[in-house]
């Protein structure tokens, strides 16, 4: 039996009747410490002030509020609860929370309403028993030491082979965190050959995709969906693979399916909006972005790009017909939010203004002109680089608003920064024929390629030389600057003379202006750490 009187509980539910009913059940079990909350936000706050042994959380706390899964995600990501704590998801219906499963964080158990005291006690005691058994694994997880997790799994299985199935997922996650790709692949395949589970399919698909084996990943996901046709996470995975292979239409269909199964997912709605926009399905894009904005309100995944996406989708949907008053109000609202919440982000200020200007270009040309002027003034003094997508959108809007020269300027700087990326250059070519923009970077990009070849061949000095020449031609190019820094740091920072260290630091200072959403941002951070030793 559990020492109930020493355990602390948090009950989260929006119905006070339910809270008091569960509270009295717990009292009857001998529990002394019971706190309650009626929203996820409140629950998070309470968990940041106090460690609870048990959290009983209702899944659905009403529209526009954080749901149980989001709260669990926040608790785990912010490390507000230990892996040893017990999180029970209370649902109104068996399947309700199921669609959330195979996500990174799963509750320790689901409990379906209504339940009685006996059921509650039985579930909790069993979970505690199991957690005691898995204690070494859970403690290693709390310390973030995947190697120890792995060792604990091995130990436990040795102790009693019957425990092996309980360790499967912990072991797979640990192998993933340790980047042991081959053992992980073999392990997942052996699980799937015997008793397939959704999470194992998802993990294998993700691994293959990460390793660039897209065709195999696609096959895995397709088989997974045939076996488990109600798991959104599998549709997400397939969509990722399809996008990477350029099949955006089918990718969109997959995400639509996932959204149908599980509509409350900010990131999924946002990605769907982006895909639909690219596929020129402006209705679909508006709908998905609108959902993402409203659900994002209370989510850690709130993102100004969603608001800008919604505005873009609505403007595109209006097309030649123009916008009705209601749409203009919606656009205004969603953009004002961005402008208000990101006063210090010059890039967002420019983009929000230009978007707004575009939306009122025909209904209120005077306002459009004013906003465009403001945007151009801020653009002028802007230090930070825009992302390639943002730059392309800004350029096209400037052109539409009659500021062709300013638009060309943005394209030119976009080509300088991202000129080594052929897809970016293709998108630029859709907007301009100006050879000065389109081929200005060619020499530098060629030099960069040669530099990479020399670097791979181990000819360090030659590589540095190529990168140096390339960077002199295109000083803002992120890839070249990173390559320059890396080829210098390759020798070890302690072996660099003052001039070389200076050169290295200078190239990194320039790239420091890249948006932190850039996929290379991580690499930049690591290089910077080595070069500046901070």
């Amino acid at each position, binding site marked *: 039996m559990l020492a109930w009187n020493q355990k602390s509980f948090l009950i989260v539910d929006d119905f006070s*009747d339910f809270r008091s009913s569960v509270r009295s059940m717990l009292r009857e079990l001998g529990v002394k410490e019971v706190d309650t909350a009626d929203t996820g936000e409140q629950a998070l706050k309470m968990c940041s002030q106090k460690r609870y042994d048990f959290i009983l959380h209702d899944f659905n706390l009403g529209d526009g509020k954080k749901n149980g899964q989001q709260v669990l995600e926040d608790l785990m990501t912010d490390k507000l609860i230990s892996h040893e704590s017990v999180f029970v998801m209370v649902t109104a*219906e*068996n*399947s309700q929370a199921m669609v959330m499963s195979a996500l990174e964080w799963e509750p320790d158990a689901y409990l379906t*309403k209504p339940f*009685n005291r006996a*059921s509650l006690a*039985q579930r909790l005691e069993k979970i505690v028993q199991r957690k005691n058994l898995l204690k070494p694994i859970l403690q290693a997880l709390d310390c973030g030491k995947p190697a120890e997790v792995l060792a604990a799994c091995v130990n436990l299985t040795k102790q009693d082979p019957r425990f092996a199935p309980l360790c499967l997922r912990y072991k797979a996650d640990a192998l993933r965190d340790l980047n042991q790709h081959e053992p992980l692949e073999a392990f997942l395949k052996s699980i799937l050959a015997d*008793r397939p589970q959704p999470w194992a399919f998802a993990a294998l698909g993700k691994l293959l995709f990460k390793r660039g084996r897209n065709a195999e990943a696609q096959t895995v996901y397709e088989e997974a969906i045939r076996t488990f046709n*109600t798991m959104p996470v599998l549709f997400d995975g397939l969509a990722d693979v399809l996008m990477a292979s350029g099949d955006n239409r089918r990718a969109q269909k997959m995400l639509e399916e996932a959204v149908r199964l599980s509509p409350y997912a900010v990131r999924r709605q946002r990605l769907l909006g982006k895909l639909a926009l690219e596929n020129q399905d402006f209705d679909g894009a508006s709908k998905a972005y609108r959902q993402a904005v409203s659900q994002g309100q209370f989510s850690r995944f709130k993102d100004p790009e969603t608001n800008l996406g919604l505005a873009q989708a609505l403007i595109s949907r209006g097309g030649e017909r123009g916008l009705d008053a209601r749409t203009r109000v919606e656009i205004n609202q969603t953009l004002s939010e961005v402008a208000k919440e990101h006063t210090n982000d010059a890039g967002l200020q420019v983009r929000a203004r230009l978007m707004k200007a575009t939306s009122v270009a025909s209904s209120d040309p005077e306002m459009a002109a004013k906003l465009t002027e403001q945007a151009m003034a801020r653009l002028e003094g802007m230090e930070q680089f825009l992302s390639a997508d943002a730059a392309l959108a800004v350029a096209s809007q400037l052109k539409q608003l009659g500021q062709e020269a300013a638009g060309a300027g943005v394209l030119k700087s976009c080509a300088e920064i991202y000129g080594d990326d052929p897809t970016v250059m293709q998108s630029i070519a859709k907007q301009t024929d100006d050879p000065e923009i389109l081929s200005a970077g060619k020499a530098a990009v060629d030099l960069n390629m040669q530099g990479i070849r020399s670097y791979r061949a181990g000819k360090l000095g030659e590589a540095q030389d190529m990168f140096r020449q390339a960077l002199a031609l295109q000083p803002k190019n992120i890839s070249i600057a990173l390559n320059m820094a890396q080829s210098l740091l390759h020798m070890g920072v302690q072996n660099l003379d003052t001039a070389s260290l200076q050169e290295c630091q200078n190239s990194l200072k320039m790239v420091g202006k890249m948006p932190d959403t850039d996929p290379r941002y991580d690499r930049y951070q690591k290089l910077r750490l080595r070069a500046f030793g901070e």
Partner: protein
Amino acid sequence: MTDQQPGLDFSMVIASTVHDMKNSLASLIQAHGQWIRQLPEAQRGTPEQGVIDYEFAHLNGMLVQLLGLYKLGVNQLPLRPDYHELDDFIEAQLALHQEVLDSRGIAARFEVDDFGLLGFFDRELVGSVISNVVINAIRYARGEVLIKAGQIGEQLVITVNDDGPGFPEHMIEQQSDYVLGINQSSGSTGLGLYFAANIARQHQRQGVHGHIEIANGGELGGGLFSIYLP
């Protein structure tokens, strides 16, 4: 109005209504439970209480099953198999019905072949099947219900046995019809078999599908329901 005018999608209407009914029933059960706990000891455990508890459980089971059938119909029944400890699973089933068992004076027990036996199945789905079978067994049992779990070859078998009069002969003879949904005229028990068989069939391993069987006899001599999971 034209002939093509689409009417209500009735199964959808039922499903969403059942969903609301289930929530409403959940509140009712919860409130009733709390109210009972406030009553003096002498006024608890009356025969009426037994009826109320039993019908609550029965209603809830039917609604869960109805929602399950709807999802099965639109091919959206989420299957999420995982490893579960059998003693835990069955204990939870019995805990769920503790009030009903108590108030009807039925002794329920369980036996698991091998302590710590793990099964691979969808806990919620198989749980709703066993729950309905247990409710049915409680209805007919005179004093005992026995749940057993064990392994036959590579398959996991969970049985529910009672000491009541057993299933009607014709039902046992025609069980394959019920399972296929051909004979649905016998009301909730027949529908229950159809649901149970479908859930069993969703579970498969290397081409082998799960199935159900009904018979009379067993240790307690009454109805004997078995679900086989590969």
